[in-house]
């Protein structure tokens, strides 16, 4: 039986990597490795997880430098020379070990007006949303985001520009811009425009590269750029 040498970040903003030896098993995931460390080697290790099957996004962390879901990452797919490095997500303050403070991530979601605003009541008729319409297809392509933070962690513009809203918040805003029932279009376009908004995206596409649900925030942000430019030129911004 071979042993994995696993480097895990311990501490807060300052700290260091601690190495653990974990028995290597067939079909083992990186989350299995972290769980083994915490249960059998070092109960002081802090980390988040919930579903452990790739539907909740809670376990998002950095494995060998790349933001991903350890529950969906096979050790065999990432371990080179029986070594793995596990660290908390980038671009977020570290609370302890592998746990980050995601407040700013969600605050930016709100700043981008990433919530639905409607005016219909139960007394009104149902809204009609045609599934084949161009707008609904744009929404469908981007709606599956569960706010795991991987894209935000992967984005270098978030690192270089602290005010940048980030791919997830902007992606959500795009789905709402295309939602025919939403009534806050003008305010939302204003919220996502400018140096801290969609215009700061340089199409690095790290978000798209890393999204565990294969979403394309880059495309959503490009859509926002077009929508905002059109509004600005029409004097609506």
């Amino acid at each position: 039986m071979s042993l994995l040498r696993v480097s895990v970040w311990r501490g807060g903003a300052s700290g260091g990597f601690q190495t653990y030896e974990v028995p290597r098993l067939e079909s083992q995931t990186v989350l299995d490795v972290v769980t083994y460390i915490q249960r059998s080697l070092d109960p002081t290790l802090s980390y988040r997880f919930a579903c452990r099957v790739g539907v909740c996004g809670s376990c998002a962390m950095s494995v060998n430098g790349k933001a991903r879901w350890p529950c969906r990452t096979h050790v065999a797919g990432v371990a080179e020379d029986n070594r793995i490095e596990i660290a908390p997500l980038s671009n977020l303050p570290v609370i302890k070990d592998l746990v980050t403070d995601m407040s700013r991530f969600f605050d930016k979601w709100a700043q981008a007006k990433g919530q639905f605003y409607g005016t219909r009541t139960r007394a009104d008729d149902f809204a009609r949303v045609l599934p084949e319409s161009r707008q609904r297809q744009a929404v469908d392509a981007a709606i599956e985001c569960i706010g795991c933070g991987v894209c935000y962690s992967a984005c270098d513009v978030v690192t270089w520009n602290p005010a940048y809203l980030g791919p997830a918040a902007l992606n959500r805003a795009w789905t709402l811009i295309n939602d025919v029932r939403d009534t806050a279009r003008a305010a939302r376009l204003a919220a996502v425009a400018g140096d801290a908004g969609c215009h700061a995206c340089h199409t690095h596409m790290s978000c798209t590269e890393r999204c565990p649900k294969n979403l394309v925030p880059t495309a959503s942000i490009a859509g926002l750029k077009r929508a905002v430019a059109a509004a600005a030129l029409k004097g609506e911004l």
Partner: protein
Amino acid sequence: MKNDFRARNHPAYWAFIAHRASGLLLTLFLPFHFWALGQALHGAEALDGFLRWTDYPLVKFAETGLVLLLAAHMTGGVRLLMLEFLAWRDWQKNLLAIAAGASLVAGLAFALNVV
């Protein structure tokens, strides 16, 4: 935690680096380029004094480099305009390869003519 090259090691990111680096270098080069051409204001001899430098192999090499930078920045920029303004399609991923190829063609054509 900060992202390092492991997170950045993918084609679209290299394209960004090439685009930013070429843009910066071209911005640094342009004032010099405008000054050199402005020498024509002082007559043909003044311009010739400068143009004679272009006979040196090192200068020809630098010129080829500049052509590559300009072609790379332009083709990379056209790629960005397509990514931002056209509806998203799968073939856009190949734009990077096309941009890189086109720059190299331009650079090669220049090098072959100048040598």
